């Protein structure tokens, strides 16, 4: 437990240092991309618990993200008023004022998304593979349709002038917490239970592993961090609308996982970083040749080629570690007879 506290503290310290660097030495656009990378990491790592470890194919991660984004932004935006005397916004909920306001709002978003995870997780338990994918996809679509219909959160226009609380510290702090917990989850009796369910559900049940319960736990866990990522996204972009959280967003997160290697936490991180930077790099090409659609077409082409030639992703199910690095260095590999 002490060690855990140490690891988390180290992660937060690293996030703090990165924040200093980004705030002082990096121009706004690359800084934004770096921050988006952090959010993608949270999304991919949390989805990896559902899709990678448990082998459930969820295509609704953007739905959980949307719930987290809207709930946290609602807390920091709608529940406040401008106080001319203090010349700043004051929250109507006193707890949400000051330093703790933002993390509390984030937590609220995460918890709301987790509740949604529970609500989605239980009824969809009986579904497997494609059917689960399609049902979660349906859930994601329902969320955006509902949000577009709620006038309290701006309808199709969404919420605007959200305070820009999410800086590199918060984003990477949350990312390091998410990665640490997800790795600890993976390497525990619960993580083994999830993998057992993925490998052979019936055998897992015969071992007394409550597959239904574990799947719901995985859904809640993944949804919670998706909600946190949504909250960070809202307070980074300063405005959100239902269109931000459509089907394509869920697909993007899945593709990050698949690129890195489904089931590998480090793969999820690498996949998230590559696929956040790649479209931005392609954006420049698209502007150069002035052909809208080229960016995503190339993106799709890369995805198809990846599936055709390396469907297991970059890492397969392995984790990036010093041992693996050593094996990858040419010349030092032991030749098998």
């Amino acid at each position, binding site marked *: 437990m002490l060690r855990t506290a140490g690891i988390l503290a180290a992660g937060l310290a690293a996030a703090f240092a990165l924040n200093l660097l980004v705030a002082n030495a990096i121009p706004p656009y690359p800084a934004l991309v770096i921050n988006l990378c952090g959010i993608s990491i949270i999304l991919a790592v949390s989805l990896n618990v559902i899709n990678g470890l448990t082998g459930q*194919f969820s295509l609704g991660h953007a739905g959980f993200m949307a719930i987290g984004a809207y709930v946290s932004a609602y807390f920091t935006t709608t529940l406040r008023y401008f106080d001319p005397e203090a010349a700043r916004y004051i929250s109507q909920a006193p707890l949400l004022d000051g330093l703790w306001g933002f993390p509390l709002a984030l937590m609220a978003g995460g918890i709301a998304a987790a509740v949604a995870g529970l609500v989605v997780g239980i*009824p*969809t338990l*009986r*579904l497997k*593979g*494609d*059917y689960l*994918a*399609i*049902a979660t*996809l*349906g*859930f994601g*679509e*329902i969320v955006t*349709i*509902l949000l*577009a*219909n709620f006038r309290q959160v701006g309808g199709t226009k969404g919420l605007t002038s959200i305070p820009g609380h999410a800086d590199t510290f918060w984003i990477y702090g949350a990312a390091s917490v998410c990665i640490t917990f997800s790795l600890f989850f993976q390497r525990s009796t619960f993580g083994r239970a999830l993998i057992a369910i993925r490998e052979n559900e*019936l055998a897992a049940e015969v071992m007394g592993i409550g597959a239904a319960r574990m799947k719901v736990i995985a859904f809640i866990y993944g949804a919670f961090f998706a909600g946190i990522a949504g909250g960070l996204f809202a307070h980074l972009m300063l405005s959100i609308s239902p269109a931000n959280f459509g*089907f*394509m967003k869920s*697909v993007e997160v*899945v*593709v990050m996982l*698949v690129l890195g290697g*489904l089931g590998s936490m480090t793969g999820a991180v690498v996949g998230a970083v590559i696929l956040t930077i790649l479209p931005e790099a392609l954006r420049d090409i698209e502007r150069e040749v002035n*052909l*809208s*659609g*080229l*960016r*995503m*077409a190339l*993106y*799709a*082409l890369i*995805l*198809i080629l990846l*599936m*055709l030639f390396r*469907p297991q992703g970059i890492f397969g199910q392995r984790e990036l570690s010093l041992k693996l690095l050593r094996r990858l260095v040419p010349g030092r590999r032991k030749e098998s007879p």
Partner: protein
Amino acid sequence: MQLLLESGDFLARLLQQCANGVAKGSVYALVAVGYTMVYGVLQLINFAHSDVYMLGAYFSYYPARWLGYMPDGAEKPKVPLYVLGLAFAFAVTACACTGMLIERLAYRPLRNASRLAALITAIGVSIFLQNAGQMVFTSEVKSFPRYVDQTSVPLGPIAVANTSLIIVVVAALMVGGLHLFVQRTRTGAAMRACSHDMRTARLMGVNVNATISLTFAIGSAMAAVGGMLIAMDQPRLTPTMGLLMGLKAFVAAVLGGIGSIPGAALGGLLLGVAESVVGTWNTTYADAVAFVALIVVLLVKPSGILGKAGREKV
């Protein structure tokens, strides 16, 4: 609801909505057939199918526009009917070829890979077609020229647009014809054999690759017809027009029982009617109907209305 009751004969309005729903549902059925056939044979959700539908609309739009001419003083272009027929035939052929090409290039190499890899490839093909479509057709909304004058045909207490009638008739003929083809012909039997057990079908001398190609060709042709009918009825073409249609048509296929052609037709009609009825109350919620219906069906009877449940061998 109150509003409806005050505004006149509630029952007549409901009937009217059902009629509109049947027209909408017919198009769902046409597209759903493609999903259900491919899923039946390959157990793959062919996400790219919705984009073949989109291509069908565009492939008929361009020849139809180019072939039409503007008579002096007329407000819209005129075109001889047989030319229109040629344009449609071109669109259907082009889509059938596209469908086969997608299968050959993207899905066949993955036939023995994990289902997940195939599913993601299908999503990739769909994104590719959407964005390639945006590159070629631009994202600007295209209006399909109105060659058919929209008139109202009185039908008992309600009135139905003539285009709706055309849609329903064409869709019924096509789906019915396909059902007969699959049930009565030798080729149809090969398709059923493949969907039942591909390996055994191969051992029995069925040319599996050709059969799968044909399945894609037929499904894509049906989607193309759906695209054309929609373009004729609601002439707004965009490269992303397939997305929502595809999702809903797939829902229709699941609703009716995936793998079953009559199921796809039934699912499409039910969904169309349900959407139209909800649409009278709130148009945006109408889009949610499909997904709510989907989740309810998956929970109550995952094999769909006309589907058969399988059992895992232990």
